[in-house]
């Protein structure tokens, strides 16, 4: 065996127009190790890996694999050089079976029949060697995401990958599924494969990697042995300044019940019951967190309370008064504000300029115009104030919203909803795709709201976030609230509840 590193990148440089995505990157990944690459959104991690996988070509720089220089001009070259990639958004054909997806691009002949037999045999072997079990005849869209991801890994292994790149692999997984994934990655490493893990979650880096490299604004700022570094040091390297990782908050002082949900049942668009007979209260001055794996009814619950989705049965009360079929606009008048889970889908119109989004939904307010006419001056002034208060960058209300980074887009939504000074705030995934610096800011705002005596309902798939912010935690599984815990409940307890195993 040679001592050549699995991957050696020297002087990789890549520009997209004016955006300098990768600046003179050097990186060495040792064979048979798990190497983490960490950085905020937009730091250039994904671009770098896409270059390695032949999705883009670097403007300059050299790639060496096992000591030999390779020109990776397309994914085909990458695959034949032994590189496999598991993308953040799975590259699977959803209405194909597992075996069809695995064979795609490696069919073994012009006719399928022969290839299918050998693919089955190979899958059997991979299953035995690495514990990658999956039913080859299952249709992808009917599999849970954890298994879909396993199919992606199998796809890479089937093509003989020696180097496996995983881009943000745990974003869609339950804690238990993530643990299982890590177990698989360790087996792969122990069998001599090289694993590159891209993530922005510090905890994962500490849990599984051997070495970690930190990227910031297109540059590789440091590489450390995981055993010799700390979460604090990595966070500081990522952001470029000291970051408060723990949310500081005082004791909650819950007051009267403001929002209450009684025996609520909600169906989704397909007519499937997603929220099943759920009841709870939210008091003034407390944050109630709803934990759960995505797709267990949290979204439908939020939408029902926000007046976007009509419940099938049960009621929602504000100050003890049932809201009936009140429209979202009417609910806003009652003092309810909503930071929706998906800012692109519901929170913003990306083609609008920033100031337009900063009043969206409140544009009927006399402050912003009269009758049919909008007072653009007033709106822009108002937007400018919010930009300053929330440090939205770049500070330009006339910029198209799509051109803001994810964190700043989220701040536009947060500013709009919080500055209305609502009494009830519904918060969905407040920090999805938001970098650490902005997370810190948004979390602080949420705690401020609580201390001002507002009633807050928080839905997040990030268990850490739920635990850091909530005063009480409800766990949802398959449409039911399976239990309530206090904020100091252990991660493992909550994780098991989220998987529907314990109550």
């Amino acid at each position, binding site marked *: 065996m040679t001592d050549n590193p699995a991957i050696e990148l020297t002087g990789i440089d890549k520009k*997209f127009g004016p955006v300098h995505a990768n600046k003179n990157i050097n990186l060495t990944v040792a064979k048979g190790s798990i190497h983490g690459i960490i950085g905020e959104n937009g730091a250039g991690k994904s671009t770098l890996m896409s270059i390695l996988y032949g999705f883009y070509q670097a403007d300059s720089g050299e790639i060496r694999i096992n000591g030999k220089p390779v020109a990776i001009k397309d994914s085909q070259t990458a*695959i034949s050089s032994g590189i496999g990639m598991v993308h953040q958004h799975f*590259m*699977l054909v*959803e*209405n194909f079976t597992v075996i069809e997806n695995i064979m795609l691009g490696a069919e073994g002949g012009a*006719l*399928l029949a022969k290839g299918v037999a050998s693919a089955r045999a190979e899958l059997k072997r991979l299953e035995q060697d690495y514990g990658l079990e999956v039913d080859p005849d299952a249709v992808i869209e009917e599999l849970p995401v954890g298994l879909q991801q396993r199919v992606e890994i199998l796809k890479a292994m089937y093509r003989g990958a020696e180097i496996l790149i995983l881009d943000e692999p745990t974003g869609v997984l339950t804690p238990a599924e993530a643990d299982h994934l890590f177990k698989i990655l360790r087996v792969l490493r122990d069998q001599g494969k090289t694993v590159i893990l891209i993530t922005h979650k510090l905890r994962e880096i500490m849990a599984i990697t051997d070495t970690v490299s930190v990227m910031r604004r297109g540059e590789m700022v440091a590489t450390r042995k995981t055993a010799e570094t700390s979460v604090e040091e990595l966070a500081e390297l990522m952001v470029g300044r000291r970051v408060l990782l723990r949310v500081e908050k005082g004791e909650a002082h819950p007051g009267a019940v403001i929002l209450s949900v009684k025996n609520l049942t909600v169906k989704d668009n397909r007519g499937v019951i997603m929220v099943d007979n759920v009841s709870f209260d939210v008091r003034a001055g407390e944050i109630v967190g709803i934990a759960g794996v995505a797709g267990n009814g949290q979204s439908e619950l939020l939408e029902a309370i926000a007046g976007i989705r009509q419940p099938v049965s049960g009621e929602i009360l504000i100050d003890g008064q049932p809201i009936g079929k009140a429209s979202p606009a009417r609910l806003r008048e009652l003092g309810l504000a909503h930071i929706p889970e998906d800012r692109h889908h519901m929170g913003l119109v990306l083609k609008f300029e920033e100031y337009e989004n900063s009043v969206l939904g409140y544009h009927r307010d006399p402050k912003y115009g009269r009758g049919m006419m909008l007072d653009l001056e007033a709106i822009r002034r108002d937007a400018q104030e919010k930009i300053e208060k929330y440090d939205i960058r770049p500070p330009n209300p006339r910029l198209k919203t799509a051109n803001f980074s994810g964190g700043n887009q989220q701040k536009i939504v947060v500013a709009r909803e919080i500055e209305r000074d609502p009494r009830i705030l519904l918060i969905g995934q407040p920090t999805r795709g938001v970098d650490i610096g902005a997370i810190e800011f948004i979390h602080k705002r949420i705690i401020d709201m609580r201390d001002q005596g507002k009633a807050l309902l928080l839905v997040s798939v990030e268990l850490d976030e739920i635990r850091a912010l909530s005063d009480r935690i409800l766990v949802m599984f398959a449409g039911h609230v399976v239990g309530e815990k206090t904020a100091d409940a252990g991660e493992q307890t909550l994780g098991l509840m989220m998987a529907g195993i314990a109550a």
Partner: protein
Amino acid sequence: MDSIDILISILGSTIRLSIPLIFTALAGLFSERSGIFDIGLEGKMLAAAFASACIAYLTNNAWAGLGAGILISVALSLVHGFASITNRGNQIVSGVAINFIVAGLTIVLGQAWFGQGGRTPQLMAAGRFGEIKFPYAEELRGSGYLGKFYADVISGHNILTYLAFAAVPISWWILYRTRFGLRLRAVGENPGAVDTAGISVTWLRYRAVICAGILCGFSGTYLAIAQSAAFIKDMSAGKGYIALAALIFAKWKPVPVMFACLLFGFLDAFANFMQGKQVPGIGEVPVQIFQALPYILTCILLAGFIGVAHPPKAGGVPYTKER
């Protein structure tokens, strides 16, 4: 005529009217399963009809006509591919443009070359695809209904008719049993998966539209030199759109496509038959009502009777690598 005779005559003409629909709908199937919407089926069919009629007239050879029809139709497919695959243009606009250009150009060229008001000259027998008589057809005609069915529905069509029915299982086999078919279905659902598997999305989609071109070449040729004996202006008469409806109705699957086309062909044949006939209890019904039936049926069926038709997920969306 007793009612069985009527039925057999309607069935015979159902077959004849379904053939261009089957070819065209299969053409659409290849294109759309690869993610390229093809509203230009109509134009390709018309262009192929014109080209085949011209060449068949000049060479007095039906096969040369077929070759010309396929050639021009594939050329138009490549134009559609260049606009919508290479340049990532709007696929509907590109398809509509092809329809317009062909509708005008065939008439202008036809008039300029032959001076018959956009028609091409009448073809001799050798320039057409003639009927093929199956063995014993004449003898069996007199021997009961089955014999009649054999003689008038199964036998007595031209070669392209039989090719159309052969094209159905062949298309199925290509789509579901070959590497090309697997990749073609994949690229219409998630081109990203194809790209990351190291396969060229562009080349794959070009091959799919070329398949569509070949099949449209057959359908146009059938119209001009098998069903008729000359090109007549606008002779495709919306069949390209009906074929698209059949494709949606059949949920983008080859065998259901054939049945959907037969159904539309039957309605067409029925409308022809009802021309000038008395409907019991109502009297004579304007033929337009029967002619409208396929369209009304399409609306009703698409509005809910066939359930949700899921088009290929990446259909109509040009592929760009994500940033």
